[in-house]
């Protein structure tokens, strides 16, 4: 099914005889396996509004992300949350879409400073499981009118509604950037350094540790500002640091963002969200290759195929998501961390209200 308008989509969902698999660009195949007829959103495309002077962009959900990014580049603006492109990691074809990015709440290294996708998302339109068209939020960045269903839709993986249009708050692209790189460091030392860097006033907006143990810290701004911040940051931190300039810096962070280090390698990929100071302990318990982002708050782990990493980690403050695994493993291990009973009851209650017939990506999140 490939509706060409929001109204068509509404009719299709309302009349759907059974389960639907919602598909944007088809590049983020995450979650428990879903059976059902494929509903594609790539018939709903186009940037409907772009006001650079108001830092606002509105686009239909099926719009390729590349089209949005190209339009923003013309005005030297960007989506500040640095959405991950999962194609390399998942070996997926296709073009990431605006709606898919929002449904996944895809947020990259800059999340530590600029927030997640949900923080830049200021409005949505969607069709719920009964075919009702709902709008929430709008195109202004300060809006507390009614409940914030905008946030609810971000990261709901198409299980509460099919997005048809999304509005974003944008930010200007800084003049330049630079990255400090350390030598190989143990996780404890790396996390301590990243915490220290993120605690300085120099607006470090990327703090990651690669699989080889090297820590990278990114700073952005006007050229003179970046030069100043680099010097000030090095003075504030222990150890010796190499600096790489804009072009190399961008390449480094794209690799961090897309976790390309695990692309094409054997094993399952897990994404673990923790408080940074707990990260070294988690990494030790995981006992497999890891990459850290968000100052240690986000761990990407490459575990042997079929491993229930949650069982290996035991109880911890945070959650683990199975991102890449074989069909068999995904059928056996829940993609999303099972929730405490009262939270699971609320999630179930929301699904029952927004998708009473259970037709939208049923079972994807549990």
């Amino acid at each position, binding site marked *: 099914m490939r509706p060409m308008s929001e109204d068509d989509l509404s009719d299709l969902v309302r009349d759907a005889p059974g389960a639907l698999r919602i598909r944007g660009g088809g590049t983020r195949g995450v979650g428990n396996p879903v059976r059902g007829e494929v509903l594609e959103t790539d018939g709903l495309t186009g940037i409907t509004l772009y*006001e650079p*002077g*108001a830092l*606002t962009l509105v686009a239909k959900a099926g719009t390729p992300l590349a089209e949005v990014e190209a339009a923003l580049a013309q*005005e*030297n603006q960007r989506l500040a949350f640095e959405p991950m492109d999962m194609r390399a990691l998942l070996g997926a074809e296709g073009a990431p879409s605006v709606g898919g990015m929002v449904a996944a*709440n895809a947020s990259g290294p800059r999340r530590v400073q600029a927030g997640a996708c*949900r*923080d830049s998302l200021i409005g949505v339109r969607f069709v*719920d499981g009964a075919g*009702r068209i*709902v*709008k*929430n939020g*709008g*195109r*202004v*960045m*300060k*809006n*507390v*009118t009614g*409940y*914030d*269903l*905008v*946030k*609810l839709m*971000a*990261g*709901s993986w198409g299980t509460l509604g099919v997005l048809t249009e999304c509005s974003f708050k944008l930010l*200007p*692209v800084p003049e330049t950037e630079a990255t400090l790189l350390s030598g190989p460091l143990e996780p404890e030392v790396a996390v301590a350094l990243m*915490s220290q860097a*993120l*605690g300085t*006033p120099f607006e470090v907006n990327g703090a990651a540790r690669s699989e080889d143990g090297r820590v990278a810290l990114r700073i952005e701004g*006007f050229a*003179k*500002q970046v030069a*100043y911040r680099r010097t*000030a940051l090095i003075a504030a931190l222990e150890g010796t640091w190499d600096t790489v300039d804009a072009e190399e810096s961008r390449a480094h962070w794209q690799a961090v963002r897309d976790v390309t280090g695990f692309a094409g390698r054997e094993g399952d990929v897990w994404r673990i*969200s*923790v*408080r*940074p*100071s707990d990260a070294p302990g988690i990494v030790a318990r995981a006992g497999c290759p890891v990459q850290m982002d*968000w100052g240690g708050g*986000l761990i990407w782990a490459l575990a042997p195929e079929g491993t229930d990493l949650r069982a290996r980690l035991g109880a911890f*403050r*945070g*959650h683990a998501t199975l991102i890449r695994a074989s069909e068999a493993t995904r059928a056996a291990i829940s993609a999303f961390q099972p929730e*405490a009973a*009262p*939270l699971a009851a609320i999630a179930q*209650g*929301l699904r029952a*209200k*927004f998708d009473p017939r259970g037709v939208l990506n049923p079972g994807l*999140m549990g």
Partner: protein
Amino acid sequence: MEMPLPNAAVIGKRDRVVARLAPLVAADALITDEAERRAYECDALTAYRCIPLAVVLPSTTEEVSAILRVCHEEGVPVVPRGSGTSLAGGALPTEDSVILGVARLRDVLEVNYDDRFIRVQSGMTNLSVTDAVEGDGFFYAPDPSSQLACAIAGNIAMNSGGAHCLKYGVTTNNLLGVTLVLMDGTIIEIGGAHLDAAGYDLLGLVCGSEGQLGVVTEATLRILPKPEGARPVLMGFDSNEVAGACVSDIIKAGVLPVAIEFMDRPCIRACEDFAKAGYPDCEALLIVEVEGSEAEIDEQLGLIKQIAHRHNPVELRESQSEAESKKIWLGRKSAFGAMGQIADYMCLDGTIPVSSLPFVLRRIGEMSREFGLGVANVFHAGDGNMHPLILYDANKPGDLELCEAFGAEILKLCVEAGGCLTGEHGVGIEKRDLMNVQFAPADLEAQMKVKDVFDPNWLLNPAKVFPLESSAARRAA
């Protein structure tokens, strides 16, 4: 403003409800005396008042849970209250409701600079959170004007903003976790000190839900390292249009000021008389502030001044000292107080796309003449959040009603221009019946379904946010 008729059956069993609540909290934490209850009859929207059935001031999450469970069993509506600074009537009681105040939940529970968060009880004031970490070089970013008094619980309920959210975002962007007590007494933990909470974004739902989904007793908040310094520049223009165009050009140029504040002539005058901040005599004034080291500030302000020059400012003055910066901000922050010395006023809170600023200001001017009531405009220009202050005389019969009608027209104008009814104050009772202007029935229905999930009996702050006729069937059920 219409409120639903109180439930006579609930009022009839007041003694029994009070008797069941009494053993749950300390003796002085249950207020039943009429004179003492009167202190809770309104919030900062003082035009509307009502004495509640009783007031409880629990000291722990467990007490909150026990109180809510009793009220749930007895079918008694509960109105949660932070510090009572809502400008929208968010904490306005009804005669048949129990006020649950979080004022005694005031402890810092955990400060962690490595992981950059603070966990607090929700009755702490906004400013006291920053006070707790400031000595170590950190701060809590959302800074509503009422920050000295307002509670974190209320900030979360209304998703409060402030002058600096162009750069740092509002409450929802700085909230990592909450302990939430549902109406049936269930205690749940959402999120934590990690950056992204698991599952559906319930944190995002709770933030800004105006105390209708649960009572927040603890919050984990993101704290940020303080910038090395900050400095404002004052710019005067001879028309609102030019000032609006200047704002847009600054934003487009790639500088991200931490705040861009706008005042029009009536407001400039009142603030100048009040604070003697050296504001120029002009039609429109911008205060633009940037942060960083001295050199960084110089560079950014240099660029901003270049842009301003293209718009022929009548005044362009960079603050030369810490004292001058303070004075410039004092003028802006005392805008409401300064206007209050001139007349009674009603403060609006609509947001508009920045690009429609000149149009909206011109229309407000025309409407001001039509209604025969003065308006002063002060607002956060960078994000389009307007605070028109409509001046009226509370002692003049009919003036309040006229003012309300004018306010409603301005908010409708904001929606027509592509904006919204409220940018940071919340809907409360004040904008409840205007929700139909911004939302179609299906939009409101989707929101009310969320409340159905969290509070199926509609007992928490029930007569707020949604138009009374839209929520009537649910409240009666």
